[in-house]
């Protein structure tokens, strides 16, 4: 098997393999150290980080739906300073690339986060989460409007040489429009998709199950939407994509690669099977060998007819 090349290079971000874990589903990596050989992961996209610590939403924060999970964590996190000073030193020696998912309410906040993380040792890339509500624009998420999305990307780009990944929200009319805007604004990579907005009402209490009323839908239920969006965005931009949304096993990973993703992230599946990333890496390697491929990259985009 030593001829197989799982290595991928995404416009400045080099990964030992294309298998990462999605932000918010894998903590800061160490939470999974008993279940996973963290050194084998391509990358860990850490929990969404904000300038100040955030307490998050009241509970219930999670609910199940057919083939899916709704969550409304509310970006609970210890803040960027704690991340840099306390958490980063614990994880930076692992072989995985640490990708910091950042969230702000204003372009200014994104800039501040970028400046702080730019100086920290052990950050491989920034993942700009533009699904957060823009407080200035009345709560409309940055990621739903091309100009707003671009403004955030520019604010980040101007303040770092790290590769920038922009994470797109699927809750938009035309995802290619946003993708093109953030490409133009200088993002190096695009990751997609974040969660679909959903909700569930408990018919016993007659009230929404999540304390926050609405939440983000993830898991296999959303995979067809994610694959479609990766496929569409792959046709409209020239930068590499990181695909995610409902990946449960190596077959799903291959589906995303065929759709045009150069790497992928596993989210909800970590909850269901904590060892899933290790199984995926093994099976992906086997698949490539058995089908005569020399590298993962050969699969990328093959699904486009």
């Amino acid at each position, binding site marked *: 098997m030593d001829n197989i090349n799982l290595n991928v290079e995404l416009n400045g971000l080099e990964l030992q393999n294309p298998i990462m874990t999605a932000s*918010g589903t894998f*903590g800061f990596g160490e939470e999974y150290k008993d279940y996973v050989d963290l050194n084998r992961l391509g990358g860990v996209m850490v929990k969404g980080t904000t300038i100040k610590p955030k307490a*998050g939403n009241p509970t*219930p924060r*999670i609910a199940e739906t057919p083939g899916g999970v709704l969550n409304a964590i509310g970006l609970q996190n210890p803040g960027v300073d704690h991340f840099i000073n306390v958490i980063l030193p614990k994880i930076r020696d692992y072989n995985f690339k640490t990708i910091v998912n950042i969230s702000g309410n204003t372009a200014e906040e994104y800039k501040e986060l970028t400046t702080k993380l730019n100086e920290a040792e052990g950050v491989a890339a920034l993942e700009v989460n533009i699904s957060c509500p823009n407080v200035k624009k009345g709560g409309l998420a940055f990621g739903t409007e091309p100009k707003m999305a671009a403004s955030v990307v520019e604010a980040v780009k101007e303040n770092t040489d790290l590769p920038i990944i922009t994470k797109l929200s699927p809750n938009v009319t035309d995802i290619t429009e946003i993708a093109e805007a953030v490409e133009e604004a200088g993002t190096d990579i695009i990751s997609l998709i974040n969660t679909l907005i959903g909700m569930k009402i408990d018919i016993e209490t007659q009230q929404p199950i999540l304390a926050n009323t609405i939440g983000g839908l993830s898991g296999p239920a959303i995979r067809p939407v994610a694959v479609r969006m990766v496929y569409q965005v792959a046709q409209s931009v020239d930068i590499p994509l990181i695909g995610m949304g409902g990946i449960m096993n190596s077959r799903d990973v291959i589906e995303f690669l065929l759709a045009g993703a150069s790497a992928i992230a596993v989210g909800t599946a*970590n909850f269901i099977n904590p060892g899933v990333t290790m199984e995926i890496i093994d099976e992906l390697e086997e698949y490539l060998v058995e089908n005569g491929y020399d590298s993962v990259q050969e699969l990328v985009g093959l699904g486009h007819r």
Partner: protein
Amino acid sequence: MPVQMKGKILANKKINATDYKLVLSVPEIVEETNPGQFLHVKCGTGLEPLLRRPLSVHRYNDETGELVILYRVFGKGTEILAKRQSGEEIDVMGPIGNGFDLNNLKEKIMVLGGGIGAAPLMALIDELVGLEKEVTVLIGANQKEELFCQSRLEELPVNLKVATTDGSYGYPGYVTGLLAEELETSDYDQIFACGPTPMLIAMEPIIADKDIEVQLSLEERMGCGTGACLSCVCKVKVENEEGFEYKKVCTDGPVFKADEVILNG
């Protein structure tokens, strides 16, 4: 350290109208288990239910590697679990969480459980009896049929008191009523309690002015069971703006000191 493994189902039997006893062979887990910890169980093998279910360790045996879970059939997950057959393998993670803190055991100890929430207390009682502690056990159930391990408890050198909501056996009413009655006549230094959140909340005024160290095992809906997803949080008092911070029931708990958590907020 917890592990993920395929445990073998040695038995999965109905013990009363709503509850089942699941016996697993999971030596790697048993080796590491302490009273009050739980397993995170993939009840079925397909998409339904998608997430694992947290189920406490009822008892375990270091020598045989066997571990027992008592569970109540509640919804989709436990319904599917009830259909699993002995001989099958089941995907479990565990042992998870901190369990009860037994480092500062006091003299007069009470163990209090309500409903299916009493399940995890058996391992604790076994441990305390092994340490030759004087233990009072208060158990509540809806009706006599739902009382767990009564015969086993009666054999142990513990002071057993029982409450049933329908009055079919022992103290008629909630186990918290029995607790109030008990605290009027006897003093305790330490209480270990486990049960539905309303029971834990009902305990608060009863123990409020007493100098008792109370450990509560909490329940919250869970995602990962590893401390990563932050869905299972509870409020713990701290001196900040909000007056609390969120802690994870799965890995910071499930056992917390009663005076540090905010249950109904």
